[in-house]
């Protein structure tokens, strides 16, 4: 069983969206399930602050030893911060996907677009847990 925090929103592509202290700014990462499926993550390619993405547009990639996986933006918005620590040490995504292994912070363009995401229960059902 992987960890699926109750208070987050999820995509079908295994990204999560977590509220931050700033209104309309959300932390984005990949789920515990996704990091477990990928195995050891050795390289993370992330965008630059200021880059804009549409909903489910590819914003970067994570590379595990055996596979490369695109990262999809859960919502349309503007990148406000990128986790530089995770680019130095990609294994943070494995060890702490919801904490130190976060990927980007994004300012959401349209708050109502959150409705299109999965809640914890729906995500758990999707991955069969």
């Amino acid at each position: 069983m992987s960890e699926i925090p109750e208070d987050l929103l999820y995509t079908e592509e295994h990204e999560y969206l977590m509220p931050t202290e700033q209104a309309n700014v959300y932390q984005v990462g990949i789920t515990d399930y996704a990091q477990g499926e990928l195995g050891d993550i050795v390289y993370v390619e992330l965008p630059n602050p200021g880059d804009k993405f549409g909903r489910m547009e590819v914003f970067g990639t994570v590379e595990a030893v055996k596979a490369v996986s695109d990262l999809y933006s859960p919502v349309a918005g503007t990148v406000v911060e990128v986790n530089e620590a995770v680019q130095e040490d990609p294994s943070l995504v494995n060890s702490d996907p919801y904490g130190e292994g976060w990927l980007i912070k994004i300012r959401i363009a349209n708050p109502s677009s959150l409705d299109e995401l999965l809640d914890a229960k729906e995500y758990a059902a999707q991955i069969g847990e």
Partner: protein
Amino acid sequence: MADELKRTPLFEEHKRLGAKIIPFAGYEMPVHYPAGIIAEHNAVRQKAGLFDVSHMGELEIRGGDALGLVQYVTTNDASRLEVGQAQYSVICQEDGTALDDCIVYRFDDHYMVVVNAANVDRDRDWIRKFADRFGTQVLDRSEQTALLALQGPAAARILQPLTDVDLDAVKYYHFASGRVDGRPAVVSRTGYTGEDGFELYIDAADAVPLWRRLLDAGAAEGILPVGLGARDTLRLEVGYILYGNDLDDRHTPLEAGLGWVTKLDKGEFIGRAALEQRKAAGLTEKLAGFVLRERGFPRPGYDIRWNGELSGQVTSGILSPTLNQGIGLAYLPTEAAKPGTMIEVVIRDRAIPAEVVRPPFYKDGSIHR
């Protein structure tokens, strides 16, 4: 669906240890255990790792002119082998292209040819076609044989207390028959990691108890069970080729850099005339090693550009866990395959500069030659 996937005698052990299982060469094999590929890789470089490679095929060549048959179907010179010695070799077709790579073992009364899992049936049937003219038998021992690879600088320390074979007397690419934990085993000082270590050919029925015994015995040394993921990163760091990626039936051993096991003057063998011709005409392409000059992960199939032109594809590539650098192999035009040449590897539309180098990429392994 293709044929049902096969399992080695250790399949249930892998599941019990929490391995992630993938299909590979017709088998359900562990790609990694809970420790993960990087930890498993590092365990082999620094301590020890235990691999289940029972999917490999063992062909026994026995009776009549067994040496004659081995010489005829492989490229290396098996007449140089002493009893208890092994050699790396290639099985070629008439046109010189490679059917497989293999290791040839000389026993006192027979030879054993160890081949890749995906090719066992093809290799066996191929060698059998020529068996009659040498009055020999080709016996497929793959199903009844399990193969454990104990690899890493601590391998001998772990194995010696369990075996009556004097490991100091077994040099690199030599082997001895004896017992491990009381069970019959061929103890071979070979491997696919660039580290010191042993491959143990054992009865399939002994695989589970020996696997457990070796993991227990190595626990104090920090041994880990190691899956196919780390097997691939370990072998590529030392530049060992993988049949199906870096050598195939479209390339000859000469292009693959295996001229050192292609003995054109040893006498007649399948593919010799074609290889001689190719050598005389000059090779148009060669398998080359490359190192990325920027961070990136070169994967098999990625395009390679040289002087701005598409010049080949990556055949094997990883982000090296030991060197923390993208490394790989690719067939390149002979002129581009020279060490020092600058090329580009196209990683998702970005051209990453790379330098051609002569493998091994990692040179500090624990093998005692």
